[in-house]
């Protein structure tokens, strides 16, 4: 983690193996020097200051850390940053365009698909992966696609509605 913080203790810098990696994050090429054991979620949050990607467990269960990795949803707490070297990552910060929200973001707001907001970035990224593959999913398909993401607040029903809202909007947009 030496490059992730401004100051390192004497001794730490010499002992710690590091690697330089380049990852395309939300379309922008980013280079960092990282310890091989650094997980991708921490690179995004601590190294690149993109704190929209959250972590909520230690066991790949909660999905709060979901990002798109070369377009596929992955749990960024379960990948090392070095594995992302040369790949493309998309986070919640990359969803909205310069002037307007992504339909999924609008859908979550319109259908009250979030309460505390902690699971929301992961939920939206998993939803994006689904809609990219399947633009008009059924309720069951949505529930199944989001079953790797836990939400403690909403009871999921409004999240399902949010994804349907987004699917309709994306279809209208063509």
């Amino acid at each position, binding site marked *: 983690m030496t490059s992730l913080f401004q100051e*390192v*203790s004497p001794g730490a810098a010499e002992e710690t193996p590091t690697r330089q990696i380049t990852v395309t994050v939300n379309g922008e090429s980013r280079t960092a020097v990282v310890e091989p054991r650094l997980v991708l979620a921490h690179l995004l*949050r601590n190294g690149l200051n993109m704190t*929209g990607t959250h972590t909520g467990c230690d066991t790949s269960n909660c999905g709060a850390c979901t990002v798109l990795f070369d377009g596929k949803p992955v749990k960024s707490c379960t990948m090392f940053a070095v594995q992302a070297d040369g790949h493309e990552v998309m*986070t919640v910060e990359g969803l909205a365009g310069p002037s307007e929200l992504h339909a999924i973001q609008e859908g979550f707001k319109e259908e009250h698909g979030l309460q*505390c907001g902690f699971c929301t970035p992961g939920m939206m990224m998993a939803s994006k992966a689904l809609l990219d593959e399947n633009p008009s999913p059924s309720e069951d398909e949505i529930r199944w696609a989001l079953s790797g993401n*836990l939400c*403690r607040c*909403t009871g999921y029903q409004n999240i*399902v509605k949010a994804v349907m809202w987004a699917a309709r909007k994306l279809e209208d947009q063509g």
Partner: protein
Amino acid sequence: MTAVDEIKIGGMGASRRRVEDNRFIRGKGNYVDDIVLPGMLHMEILRSPLAHARIKSIDASKAWAMPGVRLVLTGETMAARNLAWMPTLSYDTQAVLATDKVRFQGQEVACVIADDPYIAKDACEAIVVDYEPLPVIVNPTQSLAEGAPLIRDDKENQSNNVVYDWEVGDKDGTDRVFDQADVISKIDLHYPRSHPAPIECCGSIADFNRATSKLTVYMTTQAPHIIRAAVALVAELPEQMIRIISPDIGGGFGNKVPVYPGYVASILASILLERPVKWIEDRTGNLISTGFARDIYLHGELALRKDGRILGVRMKATADHGAFFSDAQPSKFKIGLMHSAFACYDIPNAHLEARGVYTNKAPGGVAYRCSFRVTEAMFFQERMVQAAADDLGMDQAEFRRINFVRDDDFPHRTPWGFLTDSGQYGKCLDVGLEAIGYEEFLKEKEEAAKRGRLLGIGISTMTEPLGAGNSREYDILGIKMFDSAELKIHMTGKALLRTGAKTQGQGHETTWAQIVAHELGLPAEDILVEEGDTDTAPFGMGTYASRSTPVAGAAVAMVSRKIRAKARKIAAHLLEISEEDVEWELGRFYVRSQPDRGVTIQECAMAAYSNMPDGMEPGLENVAYYDPPNLTWPFACYIVTVEVDPETGVWDVLRLVAVDDCGVRINPMIVEGQIMGGLTEAYAMANMQFITFDEHGNCIGSNFTDYLLPTAWETPGIELHEVETPCPHHPIGAKGIGECAAVGGPAAFVNAVMDALKGTGVRNIDMPVFPDRVYEALQTGQDVSGAPPVRTDET
């Protein structure tokens, strides 16, 4: 000119889209782990692997020697500063870092503060602790057994493992009606241990500035002002020098009310190092050491007349509190509001005995999405009610109906002393029965039974006390449970509102503005709502026990009315008439005899700073502290239908119908969101979500692989219905709602499964109602009680 349209300005009753969503959907929330301060260090906690053991020695030399390690804290370091123990919110004490012995698996033993969290974790592993194992107690039976080892030998005058003995009600009178009863219905129940498990774990960043002596702590707390008081007492710092900031919180559900050792240790570390210190709990730490809920055993009895009337209730509850009594309960009520059970039924006699015990488990008993043990109370109530209806051979809906407090019986005093004030219980039940198609379902069930299919229907009806308190009866550590709101109307008619509550997903930034809009006619979008910073927010007791709308929400209405009263004087001055001739309609004062001559609230705001009447204090700002006259009493009827597969014990929810009466709804969309969230937790509780321990005190359920939370896939669809009985004493007629479904819901699911098993001889399966337990019950025709056995390699 006509009055403004309340729905258009986002007032009461508008399903206004949420303001806070704008940042959350962009990934721009500001949760504690998102905050980075210059020079910040990172803290990790070393936890005990054993549930009960004496600490012989701690060798941290290897950790100290690791590059990047700045500080290692142990019980000894804390003790030298008189911080090894801290007071809890329930007049007990809790170890910050263990000195003498560890009393539960996961207890905090040492902390490492380092340049980054990875180093801190490495260094924790390098600390060598020599433990001498002691016998472990994992349930009340062991805890109360003759000769049981004393868990709290640190406490003077503690000679056994009892935390408290408490009773309420008329024992003799109740015994007498039991003597006269036609039928006595008895049942033993267990509400298993569970964990609120918000997706965000707990954490803090302590930032002590030696130059100014100011301590700022960013913290995942639902009650920042209580924490400020607690820190002032524990750390002996002057209260004006302590600033607690509760930033965005990723769900609380009661998990973020208590004071945890990690907070205290990060504060001491920052004071010692004079640098900001961040502690972010990992999930295992969260599940094994913080705020468990439930874990109560009950023996319940109802005295019944043949015609179905309930004559009396006897409840005997034993609560497993773990090693420290650290959950917040109002000081008068040791087992919380357990005695609110049966409040919706008209029962003349009742007696409750409760005992709390220590065990070698994490401190538990927090109000997980409920007011102080109300979840347990209502679950026991509705399971007892269903068992009693079955014992009498009566229809379960009819049995409830004849025992309900009637609409014209309010205010109604319960035998345990609560005063319920409003409700239409029968109507809610009717709406629910109609929605589910009760009669048709009973026929369908009968038909299905002929073909060997097991269908069941479960009902749960309850009113629960939400929104502590009134200060006569409710306090935490002596601090009265009022709340507050401060409203500042700027000269352009825009406003800043702050309250003593703290949102964790409930949407206060949206709904509080709606109350102001309702009272003053200002568009909701013109009102900025802020909470959670003790340097700026007025003193309040925070958000839990569904108290925000009943207490802080009432304060918002009251402060708006104070503002309106002053604005009226300004309006009279602007209109050059006497105040008595001024009339109000939403957003505007006008001359009674000339309705088209008027001034808007915005014009009054401008005048408050630029053209006030002679002798009037300038400005348009005020603050209100609200001490509610009573709790609020929402009512709910939840009905679930299930099909049980007799071959596997698997049960599927066919339909889930909810009828909620929470009085006036400020934002219907948000109210419905709260109900759906609560029902999902209710389903989880009945079905999968529980934490148990093996005989060594190992926590089974220390991560999300073992502690099962429902996903979108299992969670049933929800059908919502509504009845509205305004709260007679709340300024806008609202009642609490955040917790009703989690409180009343679990019994509906269990009752449904039990109904499906009716006639098999099985009267009860304790939660979680796992398929294997249902299967076992079907095979044996016997009840399945207690926590599911733990399967370890040895067994």
